[in-house]
């Protein structure tokens, strides 16, 4: 019996060694979207699966699978707990994931529990008000808000502690008021918040510009500021940033991917190389523009460092806002 076992294990070792000699290549590449189809994570996955296919970078088609629950918490726990060795799968993540990790909403796992692969696109925050609002610049709005914080409600599509709330909190801070003083109304998604803005139930909507772009031409709203470092390209190029108006508020909603915690160095490098190849192709740029995402490319170690810095930053912000101890 013992001998048999020895034989089997040695055979396994041989098999493992020989397969290690052949370079890693996923047989059934999967992008796991930790949400229902149609949402932001789906979009993130499709960006990679579609452009990989269009640029013919993988031999096998990459499919998208879904695992909704707790804004990514279910998938995070599942990957770490049950698929820690799975090298075939990349998992979509975003600023929201980093925020949840920073606030301990992903259970016992922190940002070091997975291997961060790459960030491939971004959206930026925007301060949106009704078209007939009396303010024309961010400064006018903030002055009013500071004078009478009780008269204006900010509403957005996320709960307290979500990225939408943090955006609102940063705006409140720029106005010089304590985020705890601001009137924040949590809606179910940006669409509901926009409707409430139109109905006059809230006065300020701190939203995301790409998400808003479908409504941009409707003429019903006014964008007071974009929360990016520099002006955005294309149809948004005439919109001023908060920074150029003298308020240092930047809010990037990046979209990226992580790998399971126990993938080997070689497997990690395979994906890094593939993504590096991918971002150079015109197909990728086309797919990214199609999804209304702005260029944002950080790959491998650079992305890893970036995410960890983000989580650290959010941790401080959450503590300051009194959300965590």
């Amino acid at each position, binding site marked *: 019996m013992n001998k048999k076992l020895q034989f089997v294990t040695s055979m396994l070792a041989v098999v493992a060694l020989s397969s290690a000699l052949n370079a890693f290549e996923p047989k059934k590449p999967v992008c796991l979207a930790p949400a*229902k189809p*149609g*949402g932001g994570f789906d979009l993130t996955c499709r960006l990679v699966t579609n452009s990989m296919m269009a640029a013919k970078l993988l031999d096998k088609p990459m499919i998208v*699978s*879904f*695992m*909704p*629950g*707790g*804004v990514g*918490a*279910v998938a995070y*726990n*599942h990957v770490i707990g049950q698929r820690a060795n799975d090298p075939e799968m990349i998992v979509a993540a975003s600023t929201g994931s980093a925020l949840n990790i920073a*606030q301990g*909403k992903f*259970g016992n796992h922190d940002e070091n529990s997975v291997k961060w692969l790459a960030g491939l696109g971004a959206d930026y925050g925007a301060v949106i008000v009704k078209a007939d609002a009396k303010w024309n610049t961010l400064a006018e709005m903030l002055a009013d808000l500071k004078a009478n914080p*009780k008269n204006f*409600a900010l*509403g957005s599509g996320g*709960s*307290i*502690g*979500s990225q939408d709330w943090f955006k609102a909190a940063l705006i409140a801070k720029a106005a010089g008021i304590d985020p705890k003083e601001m*009137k*924040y*109304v*949590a*809606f*179910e*998604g940006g*669409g*509901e918040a*926009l*409707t*409430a803005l*139109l*109905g*006059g*139930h*809230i006065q300020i909507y701190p939203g995301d510009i790409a998400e808003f772009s479908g409504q941009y031409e409707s003429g019903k709203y006014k964008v007071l500021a974009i929360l990016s470092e520099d002006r955005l390209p294309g149809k948004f190029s005439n919109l001023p940033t908060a920074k150029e108006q003298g308020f240092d508020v930047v809010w990037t909603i990046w979209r990226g991917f992580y790998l399971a915690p126990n993938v080997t160095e070689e497997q990690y490098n395979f994906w890094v190389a593939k993504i590096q190849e991918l971002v150079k192709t015109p197909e990728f740029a086309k797919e990214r523009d199609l999804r209304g995402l702005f260029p944002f490319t950080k790959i491998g170690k650079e992305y890893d460092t970036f995410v960890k810095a983000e989580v650290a930053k959010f941790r401080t912000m959450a503590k300051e806002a009194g959300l965590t101890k």
Partner: protein
Amino acid sequence: MEVLSLLGSGFGTVFQPLNLFLIFLGSILGTLFGALPGLGPINGVAILLPICYTLGLPVESSLILLAGIYYGAEFGGRISSILLNVPGDAGAVFTTLDGYPLAQKGLAGPALALSGVSSFIGGTIAIIGLTFFAPILASFAIDFGPSEYFVLMIFAFATVSALMGASPVKSLVGVAIGWIIGIVGVDSTTGVMRFSFGEAELYDGFEFLTVIVGFFAVSEIMLMLEHHSSENFEMPKITRIYVTMKEILYCKWTILRSSVIGFVVGVLPGTGASIASAVSYTLEQKLVDKEGTFGTGDMRGLAAPESANNACAGGALIPMLTLGVPGSATTAVLLGALMLYNINPGPMLFVDQPVLVWGLIASMYVGNIMLLVINFPLVRVFTKILQVPYWLLVPSVIVLAFVGVYSVNASTFSLGMATMLGILGYFLRKLHYPMAPVILGFVLCEIMEDNLRRAFAISGGEINIFFGSAINLTLWGMTLAIFCVPMLSKFIAKKYSLGKKIASK
């Protein structure tokens, strides 16, 4: 007429081959679900929804199919009511009162035909109402802020408890159970977990479909297995399957009145086909039944509930499409369909999704005509299907339902949950708790709670916000009025104890 041009573009959507086929399919399946005792529009929609979604149908096509099942079921519910004295669904209870006696008199065929025509007229009047009233309501739905939504929910729950089921207390208990289930998961204002017990699968609360399938498919099937194993139905003979013009004209005012009543009841949130048919039947009894022939096979007594329950289906779509608030348990499932597709139901739906909204409305015109047409030649086929043995029917339904639940989240956890909720639902039903309030409680509690907290966030904790606007005051007035209805209905019930006896069966 902007409405007409929009409706025209809706017909453009409808006349695509896929959508025409789906209307046809929805009509047939709906009639089937309605005809089979125990299965009703909710079960039909709940079972088909995940399948549509998994098949990757575009959202307007899915909704066209599901709505077809909805009004098709109101159409089909009459078949077993007339032939077997067993209501096919809750909306068809009052159809048995005069439908079955007619069948016993040898008039099963004309009764089926007349009820088909009444259903068609009721449905069509409601769709016309939907076409013209919905855009009007949508245009001022934007004024519904958090406080208005909250008061609207108060009104909805008042309606549920006052009108639904035999006992207001049991309805309220049902609502409370719905709330308890609905409260699980992340709190949408603060992001705090509630009653999830560290179980990641519960972070987002109970999946809507899991709850629906548990309460409506699983528990229904348990009841079916229990009830019908030993029963043997005797089918009355069907002779002529048409209705004469004279017979239709005899009922014309009843049909028209009941259609309008059904439509209005449908628009009220928290009501449903069962209330619509009850109200119209009792009213007609009062108005036209001079000789006391209602309940003994009066054609008008058959036409009243049938036109009302079909009209109700059209009316119930109005609050769903304009405010994002379901008027009935079935529209709650339809609303779930929209959310599954990440479409935000609410005041902006008419502006943002014209293809969806007008395609749906236009499809209902076509669907109603299809239902009328297929119901005449196929009535014999449907009566045959009523004789499908339960050992075949029950496993098929349960498999379909579970495939659907699994496909949404790909999790076996949901399957276990659906089973548990099904068992809970079974015991509740055994204790005569109606299921519709549970579902409405589950769906509406989130709308109610979120909007209460939003309203307080806006007002800075002042309660005046709930009495501030004209809409709010109107809604409070309507709520007060609804509380007077039970007293009135008690009075009616005493006078016409027959209807009540059968309704509570």
